């Protein structure tokens, strides 16, 4: 009896720190944000006590034009960056999976962007996008004449696209490595069989590679989508949500409302909405795209 008890107390002691942290860092704040969303809680203490305001925050949120703009921007970013980034990652992975010369060197080089913190990437791209004579505009001038330039970051139409390209550049190596792992798992004899059948390169991709990547694709689609929905740093450093709110994402709006404007109650309603949206999207993707071998 004492020995069993001793073994179990050890188990409890080993389980406790991680569970305590999860409760303190995730469960308690989660419950707090639901609670705050029904109050007029402020960040800094005020002389007037915090009041229960019912659904006011939610009513305000659904009537808030800027909130809907933030949702639109976040959706736009996600819809642009996910296919773009996954396509690039897959193409690079296929090139680096082929028996090309200097393959190791190419792999090393293509991973480098992942090692740069986003703030450094933003600094680099701020120069690339510079007006009127940054590198990208210099290239543009070759086609459009010497005085022409595009204000990539400063234009409402182009700012989000500029953030998309920068983000894809910064993080594509992660997806590329996962694709590379997936490509290495494709059985080689499938390709041999396809070749014997006279399949073209495109047919080999379409009917051998692509089906074999199904699980990898689903995994990457879900994590890249969730990553995209959380867009904050690039926007916060490069555009401050502008111009004219055209790059204000949900998280950036939440930060503005809750931290800069100190409206915790209102921002909590936004965060509850964000949590529900992200979870729903993840679950829906999961349900509609079943892994191979699942019912």
């Amino acid at each position: 009896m004492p020995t069993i008890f001793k073994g179990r107390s050890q188990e409890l002691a080993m389980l406790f720190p991680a569970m305590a942290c999860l409760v303190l860092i995730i469960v308690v704040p989660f419950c707090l944000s639901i609670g705050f969303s029904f109050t007029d809680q402020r960040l800094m203490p005020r002389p007037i006590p915090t009041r229960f305001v019912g659904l006011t925050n939610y009513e305000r949120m659904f009537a808030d034009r800027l909130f809907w703009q933030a949702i639109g921007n976040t959706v736009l970013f996600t819809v642009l960056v996910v296919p773009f980034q996954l396509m690039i990652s897959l193409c690079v992975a296929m090139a680096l999976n082929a028996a090309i010369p200097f393959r190791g060197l190419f792999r090393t080089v293509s991973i480098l962007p992942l090692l740069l913190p986003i703030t450094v990437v933003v600094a680099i791209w701020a120069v690339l996008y510079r007006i009127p004579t940054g590198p990208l505009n210099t290239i543009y001038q070759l086609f459009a004449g010497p005085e022409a330039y595009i204000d990539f970051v400063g234009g409402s139409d182009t700012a989000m696209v500029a953030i998309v390209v920068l983000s894809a550049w910064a993080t594509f190596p992660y997806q590329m490595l996962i694709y590379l792992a997936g490509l290495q798992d494709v059985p080689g004899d499938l390709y041999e069989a396809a070749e014997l059948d006279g399949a073209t390169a495109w047919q080999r991709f379409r009917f051998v590679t692509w089906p074999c990547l199904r699980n990898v694709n689903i995994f990457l689609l879900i994590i890249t989508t969730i990553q995209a929905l959380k867009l904050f740093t690039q926007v916060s450093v490069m555009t401050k949500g502008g111009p004219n709110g055209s790059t204000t994402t949900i998280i950036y709006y939440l930060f503005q409302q809750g931290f800069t404007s100190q409206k915790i109650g209102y921002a909590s309603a936004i965060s509850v909405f964000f949590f529900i949206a992200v979870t729903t999207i993840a679950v829906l993707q999961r349900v509609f795209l079943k892994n191979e071998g699942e019912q």
Partner: protein
Amino acid sequence: MIRIFPRGTLMPFLFACTVALGVLLPLMMMVTISLNPDEQDILVSMGSLKSFIPETVSFQNYIDVWTDPARPFFRYMMNTAIVTVATLLISITINSMAAFVVAQGSLPGNKMVLLFVVATIAVPAESLVLPQLILAGKLGLVDTYVVQILPGIANALSIFLFFQFFSRIPKDLFEAAELDGFSFFQKYRHIALPLSKPVISAVAILQFLEMWNAYLWPVMVTRGPEVRPLTVAMGAFFGTNQRIPWGDVMAFAVSMAVPVILFFLLMQRQFIASVMSSGVKG
């Protein structure tokens, strides 16, 4: 003609060259600008070949950013290092322990614990920053290392990855150890943990990348250079409406990126293997 390119590899090779250029040109530009001490010249030559291939090599910008008292580079670097290393060590220790209990232990609620862990993986940390900030304020933790370390160590994904690995270890290994009088903790410490190097490095790398990019949380909970990490200091170059000193910005960026890139070059094999393995799940 000698066949350098086996059949079907010319196109992939050309594509790989394009990608390599797309990665290296911006990096070369970063280095080139950082070596140019003349801000006026940087602006004038931006976009020309001169901003990709250094004409002058001067370390003036580096000396400037390393010795700027208003923006103490090495202090920021130490802050980042302390927060990152502490997070990784604590996180890997407590999360692997908890995972071992769930995978190999005999506590009655283990299934519930696992369910709870899986459910918390889905919670986006960004949606919790405001209540976390209020909690941190109530606990008097704002502007400390602790407040930057805490959110990272509660890592449900890390528990789950360790759980997957530990539950695949054959039971016989542990039964033999029990005969030798190993306690539960000793089984974890002396059998499971030494076997789990691949998971440890995968978890460590994923979490390192996360900490290295952390921005939202440190911006909210740090005020001055005493505990601020490098990323936030870097972001602050863009905070004001003043003219951005590009030479300094790029010297700061290079100083920040080089240690990590060197470390990566040394550990490349493990890095690639770890990231690859992180996707094989679900």
